[in-house]
């Protein structure tokens, strides 16, 4: 008797596992190109994961609303199959495996975050399925010799270079720099990159430190920064880090010429949480809705137009996470159209050769699959509004300079 019930339990478990959902893996056969994406809908990266999904969905709906996508004379609808990677690299890898194996998806859109992207890239490589990602900027992903992963972002090392360049163009010139970083894959690369860059450009790096990822108290770091009296205070981290550091700097009344963050000032949360203290803060961004690129035919050509349509659809302005996700889809779109094929191998080759300007900027990959051709932009918060101030050719407004004392911002 006991054997029977146990066997029954095991059989049920098996059935539950194996049956799964009845997803019809629609492919080119019935005129729909299906993309697969494992994004973080829950977990520590859920906020950014949702922005990623919005960016993907915006592209999908736009293409379908405009009659679909033409590849080699035939018109296709597009669809995206999503799973939740729970912000865990381990889960992301398994889901990409599932997308390719079970759902027979031939094209992968990347997850959010460098860690999840890294493990997804390993699977894409093993399965020889092209993946375009717009949300994992760590250069290490691209130093593995992978052939099937393409990143449309400017790499992490270059994130804060723009702020240094911008600072050097001001008078009085800042001479010293301090940078703290969250101890994660992305932020550490950002830090290394700007330290090297500053040294090469005659700026004295007076303080560097890493603190544990997801810290809730960085006051010791702030005290050390204050003691070093830097002209430029930078932080490499994510939105929470930027908030934590900036509040800490105010509490301890640390005065500098430049306060710059790798991620944060771009999000409305940052401005809402800090109010007037957010003014004069610099943030680097992959994109802003003020950049003046002229996109080629096939999608919304300009950033302001993208922003307006996006706002209409989702009820909020797009930040760069949205835009870079949409741009990842665009890389696939142009590669498929230019390569004239939906064969995964041919799409990969077309991606490797891609050279196209979009509302997001240039999409072009070096031999590692990394987009080193697009510059970062620098935004500044002026009177509660985010405006693009650098590089000069793409700027909306002049840099507000110099930064006054805390009470007068």
């Amino acid at each position, binding site marked *: *008797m*006991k*054997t029977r*019930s*146990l*066997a029954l*339990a*095991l059989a049920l*478990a*098996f059935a*539950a*596992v*194996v049956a*799964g*959902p009845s997803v019809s893996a629609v492919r080119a056969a019935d005129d729909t190109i299906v993309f697969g994406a494992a994004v973080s*809908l*829950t977990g520590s990266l859920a906020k950014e994961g949702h922005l990623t999904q919005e960016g993907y969905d915006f592209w999908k709906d736009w293409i379908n609303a405009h009659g679909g996508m033409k590849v080699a004379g035939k018109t296709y609808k597009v669809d995206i199959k*999503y*799973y*939740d990677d*729970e912000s*865990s*690299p*381990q889960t992301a*890898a*398994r889901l990409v*495996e*599932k997308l*390719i*194996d*079970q759902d027979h998806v031939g094209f992968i859109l990347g997850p959010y975050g460098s*860690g999840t992207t*890294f*493990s997804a890239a*390993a*699977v894409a490589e*093993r*399965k020889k399925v092209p993946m375009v990602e717009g949300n994992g900027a*760590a250069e*290490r992903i691209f130093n*593995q010799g992978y052939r099937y992963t393409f990143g449309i972002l400017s790499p992490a090392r270059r994130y804060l270079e723009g702020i240094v360049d911008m600072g050097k163009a001001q008078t009085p010139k800042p001479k010293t720099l301090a940078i703290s970083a969250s*101890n*994660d*894959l992305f932020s*550490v*690369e950002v830090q290394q990159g700007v330290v090297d860059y500053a040294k090469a450009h005659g700026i004295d790096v007076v303080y560097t430190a*890493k603190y*544990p*990822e997801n810290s809730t108290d960085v006051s010791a770091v702030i005290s050390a920064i204050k003691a070093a009296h830097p002209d430029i205070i930078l932080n490499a981290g994510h939105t929470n880090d930027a908030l934590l550091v900036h509040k800490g700097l105010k509490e301890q009344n640390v005065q500098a010429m430049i306060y710059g963050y790798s991620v944060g000032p771009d999000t409305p949360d940052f401005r809402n949480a800090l109010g007037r203290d957010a003014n004069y803060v610099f943030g680097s961004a992959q994109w802003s809705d003020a950049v003046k690129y002229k996109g080629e035919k096939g999608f919304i050509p300009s950033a302001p137009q993208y922003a307006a349509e996006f706002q209409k659809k989702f009820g909020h302005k797009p930040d760069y996470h949205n835009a870079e996700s949409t741009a990842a889809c665009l890389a696939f779109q142009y590669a498929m159209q230019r390569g004239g094929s939906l064969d995964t191998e041919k799409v990969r080759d077309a991606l490797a050769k891609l050279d196209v300007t979009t509302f997001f900027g240039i999409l072009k990959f070096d031999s590692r699959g990394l987009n080193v051709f697009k510059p970062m932009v620098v935004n500044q918060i002026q009177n509660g509004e985010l405006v693009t101030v650098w590089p000069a050719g793409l700027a909306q407004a002049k840099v507000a300079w110099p930064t006054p004392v805390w009470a007068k911002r």
Partner: protein
Amino acid sequence: MIGIAGNRVAILVAALAMLALLFVPLAKSDYTNALFRGILMYGAMSYGWNVIGGYTGYVSFGNVVFFGIGAYAAALLATHGITDIGLSIVAAMVAAALFAVVLGIPVLRLQGHYFGIATLSIALAAQDLISNIDAFGATNGLSPKAATLFGAAVPYVVTYYAMWVVCALALAGTYAVSRSRLGYALVAIRENEGAAAVLGINPTKYKVIAWAISGMMGGGAGAVFVYANSYIDPATAFAVDNNVFPIVMALLGGVGTVAGPLLGAFILTAINETLWNHFPFIHTLFFGAVIVIVVLFLPRGLLALIAARRSWSLYVQHLRAYRV
């Protein structure tokens, strides 16, 4: 009763299930392999937890540390050119066991909640420590190349068989423990440590041995995981999931039994997989509810429930015994 191994029929079924799992790769689907490799991985880790948490009664909240150490041992070997998967498993087991012994001698003198808290902090500290050591790749992680066996490159499916071996060793090891003097000593410590000492059992010695065995099981799983995932970073190696799942699996299947952890790994993985297939946005909510139900209504696991079938009073007794 049937001794401390648990229901003999259940053990037989577990052994047969292990044999059946050998044939999973015949489906020729990497995803199916990955799914069942997950069951084997969590099975091995759950066996590891079961030795210390189930048999010895020392509830550890930090067993993921062995998984992490095993993973890093294998990844470090790989960065030095040693990618033999068999050797990696052995090295990982040795590293995890050594760590367990060194740490166990002080920590296993703690009892009850104090032990639980200490193990939890060990797991957190290990993650932070590795995040700051450049030789371990710090937070960048390490990414070993493909595995080899006896000097030859092997196909990816070998990671499945390697995980099978680790889980089979964990099952067999648990069975051996449950049949040995060691097993009875551990149960004696669980039931009454003072009385066990009076009987001539050296509690610290036996607890350290149990923890070392526990560590070997988790460490072996970590070594194979590195090759299955091609990438390891501290956040993955010491993930909360990898800490909690093995415990819940042992609870669900049956704590302190030979068949329980594998049964638990099977069912919990099946539930998890089905939930996120059907409810991609709120699956974690459902999954949390499942865990709560297990703890509330199945305090002694499914095996005990099956044994108590026909006898509601026995089931109610179990419930009463564990109600706070």
